[in-house]
C-alpha cells in the first residue's frame, strides 16, 4: 500500500480534524477575549469555510485541461470565484489583525492571530479534502 493510497483513505478525516481545529482556535479566542468580539470579526472564518465548500463541490474528472477546446469555462469560473473568496477572507483576517494590534480598545492581538490561523486551517482542510480524491 503506497502513500497515495493512505492519503486517499485518511485524507478526509485529516481534513475534518484541521477544519475543527481552525474553528476551535477561533472559539478559544472569542471565549478568552476581555472585549466583546464584533460580528465583523467572524466574517473571515465564515467566508473561508464557504470558499472551502465551494471548490470541493467540483468533481475533478469534470475539469478539462485541454489547451485547444473551449472547455468547461463555468467550472473554471466557479473555481476562480472560490479562490477569490478565500483570498479575500485571508486578506480580511490579516487586516483585522493589524487593526486590532493598533487599536487599544479593540480585542487583543490573540483574537487577530486566531482569526488568521482559523482562515489558514479552514483553507488547508479544503485543500486536504481536495487532494485526497484521486482522479
Amino acid at each position, binding site marked *: 500500500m503506497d502513500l497515495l493510497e493512505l492519503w486517499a*483513505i485518511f485524507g*478526509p478525516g485529516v481534513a*475534518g*480534524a484541521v477544519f*475543527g481545529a481552525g474553528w*476551535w482556535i477561533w472559539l*478559544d479566542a472569542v*471565549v478568552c477575549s476581555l472585549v466583546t468580539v464584533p460580528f465583523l470579526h467572524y466574517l473571515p472564518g465564515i467566508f473561508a469555510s464557504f470558499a472551502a465548500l465551494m471548490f470541493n463541490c467540483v468533481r475533478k474528472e469534470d475539469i478539462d485541461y485541454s489547451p485547444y477546446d473551449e472547455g468547461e469555462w463555468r467550472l473554471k469560473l466557479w473555481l476562480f470565484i472560490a479562490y477569490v473568496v478565500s483570498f479575500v477572507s485571508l486578506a480580511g483576517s490579516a487586516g483585522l489583525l493589524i487593526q486590532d494590534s493598533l487599536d487599544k480598545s479593540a480585542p487583543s492581538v490573540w483574537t487577530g492571530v486566531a482569526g488568521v490561523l482559523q482562515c489558514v486551517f479552514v483553507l488547508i482542510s479544503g485543500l486536504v*479534502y481536495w487532494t485526497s480524491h*484521486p482522479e
Partner: protein
Amino acid sequence: MFSASILLQILACAIYNNWWPMLSALMYVLVPMPCLFFGGGSTQFLMTRDGGGWIDAAKFLTGASAVGSLAIPIILKHAHMIETGAMLIELVSFFIFICTVLCFHQASLDDDW
C-alpha cells in the same frame, strides 16, 4: 476501557468540584454518529477509500468531532475555568476512548473473516 474513560471524566469533575469538563463528554456522543449514519454501523469505512462522497463526508465529520474532544478541555483551561490537572485527566480520558474505539474496530474486522 470505555467505563474507565467515563470514570476519568467524572473524576476530572468531582476532584475539583467543577462540572465544566462534562462538555467534553458531549463530543464523545458526537464522534460515533457519522459511523452510525453513513457507514452502516461499522467502522470499516474508515479504512477504505471506496464509498464515494458520503463516506468522505463521514470521515470529515469524524475528524472534526475528534478534534472537538481535544479542544474543549484546552479552551476551558485557557479561560481559567478548570485546573491544569483536570485538563490532563480529560486528555487521558480521550486517549483511552480512542483506544477503545480502535479495539472495537479491530474486533469488528476479525468478525468479518
